[in-house]
């Protein structure tokens, strides 16, 4: 039986009005503008773009304001908006070797050509609260040096020169798209990477950390981490040639991992890959570790039963919008469901009581 229940319209309307007031907070305090969010909370904006899977800083800033800073709610808003956009096409794969790097470090080669460029990093800060930021103040002048205008070669390209790291098989195949076709297992590496790059940062971090603690250990070096902007090129169908349709900031991490070699492959390093919208360093490293762990089968490694090796487990649970949707739906009215469970438990109780009574009276009779 299905019983439709109506009601609560006024309660809902009033709740939304109150939400708007609470969102605004004390009106004696200046209202936050989208530009302020975009410029001063840029890493939150980056996270919303990465997990919302839509590069648009202004839109992400709006979502953060509307969500009162709840980033998963903001990601939800961006994902919902994304589904309304007609798809004009796909870009050419971005060339990260041509990235204008704000930051570029290698944990494997001290003297890498192009150098170790720290960029605007939290690393080496003391993680002590800076009470100067509680007051308005001027920012110090940023030192400048002779700019490097040529491209910075990838660290893996040097290892490749020595043929001591696996080669990434080049192709121009059209990759699977999980926004268009439902995920099926086993998933291609392309779909795994798409899923990881939009996956929840906390979940991907936890999975990556588990591999470091020994669940499917494959010791990773950060061969290279780079953050910067790359042009996005797309062919314009009406014109028949490519233009740079814009520019995106990306964080790329390439890990260099151990590999024993096999009967057919000499000992060589293997690789994990992370590529994330915005300045998203933690997520990018974590993505590379999880990508590498999920490649166990193609690299002839043992299935150790570790969670990070189980692609069905990882990919089915990494999306925070799916997860929160299913998790939070249980707070919505389940009156009828619950009523039937209640009836069932009462019936079981009644039956158990009747049975006990019958047994007791039989015993008494004997």
């Amino acid at each position, binding site marked *: 039986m299905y019983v439709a229940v109506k009601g609560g319209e006024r309660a809902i309307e009033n709740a939304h009005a109150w939400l708007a007031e609470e969102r605004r907070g004390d009106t004696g305090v200046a209202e936050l503008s989208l530009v302020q969010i975009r410029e001063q909370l840029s890493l939150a904006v980056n996270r919303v773009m990465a997990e919302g899977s839509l590069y648009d800083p202004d839109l992400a800033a709006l979502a953060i304001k509307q969500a009162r800073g709840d980033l998963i709610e903001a990601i939800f808003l961006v994902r919902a908006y994304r589904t309304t956009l007609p*798809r004009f*096409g*796909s870009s050419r794969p971005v060339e990260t070797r041509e990235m204008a790097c704000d930051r570029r470090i290698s944990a494997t080669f001290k003297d890498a050509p192009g150098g170790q460029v720290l960029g605007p990093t939290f690393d080496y800060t003391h993680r002590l609260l800076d009470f100067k930021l509680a007051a308005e103040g001027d920012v110090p002048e940023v030192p400048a040096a002779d700019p490097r205008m040529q491209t910075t070669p990838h660290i893996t390209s040097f290892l490749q020169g020595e043929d001591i790291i696996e080669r*990434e098989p080049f192709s121009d195949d059209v990759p699977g798209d999980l926004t268009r076709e439902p995920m099926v297992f086993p998933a291609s590496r392309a779909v795994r990477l798409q899923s990881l790059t939009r996956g929840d940062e906390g979940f991907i971090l936890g999975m990556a950390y588990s591999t470091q603690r020994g669940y499917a250990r494959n010791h990773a070096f950060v061969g290279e981490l780079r953050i910067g902007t790359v042009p996005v090129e797309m062919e314009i169908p009406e014109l028949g040639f490519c233009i740079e349709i814009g520019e995106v900031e990306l964080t790329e991490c390439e890990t260099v991992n151990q590999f024993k070699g096999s009967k057919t492959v000499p000992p060589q390093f293997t690789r994990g890959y992370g590529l994330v919208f915005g300045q998203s360093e933690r997520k990018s490293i974590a993505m590379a570790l999880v990508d590498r762990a999920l490649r166990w089968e193609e690299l002839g490694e043992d299935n150790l039963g570790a969670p990070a090796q189980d692609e069905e487990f990882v990919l089915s649970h990494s999306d925070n919008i799916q997860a929160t949707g299913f998790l939070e739906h249980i707070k919505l009215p389940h009156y009828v469901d619950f009523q039937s469970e209640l009836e069932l438990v009462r019936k079981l109780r009644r039956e158990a009581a009747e049975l006990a009574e019958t047994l007791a009276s039989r015993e008494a009779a004997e």
Partner: protein
Amino acid sequence: MNTNFSAEDRKGWMSLLASAEEARLTELWQDYGLDPDFEFLRAPEVGGIMVRGRMGSTGAPFNAGEMTVTRCALSLADGTVGHGYVQGRCKAKAEIAAKIDALMQTGAAEALNEAVLVPLAQARQAQKTARASKAAATKVEFFTMVRGED
């Protein structure tokens, strides 16, 4: 009609317009002053494109996520067709880009280039150089500590 341009030139100005800062482009366009009669062939429309990367930066492609793009197409009174494809969701920016794309195919090209495209290219270059200079200042210079007698 200016026929003295190549596909490469057109790619150049369309690319510059696509990622131009909205406020700066609007300002330069207004300063240029000429607003030609036109008809939309495709009204400005906001959409998305899928941005792809390559596995390990050199391997097979994968879908990294989408970005917003606005496009439109128009024709000038003389029939010249201009296309605007710009990053973001600004319809006015796409319209200006399409008008400039059309006018760059006409006799107005030289003046328009001077008034709008050259300043845009300079601004872009200056911004890139400024960031690269700050990055360069954070490059680590290693030095080795020598200890002991010799």
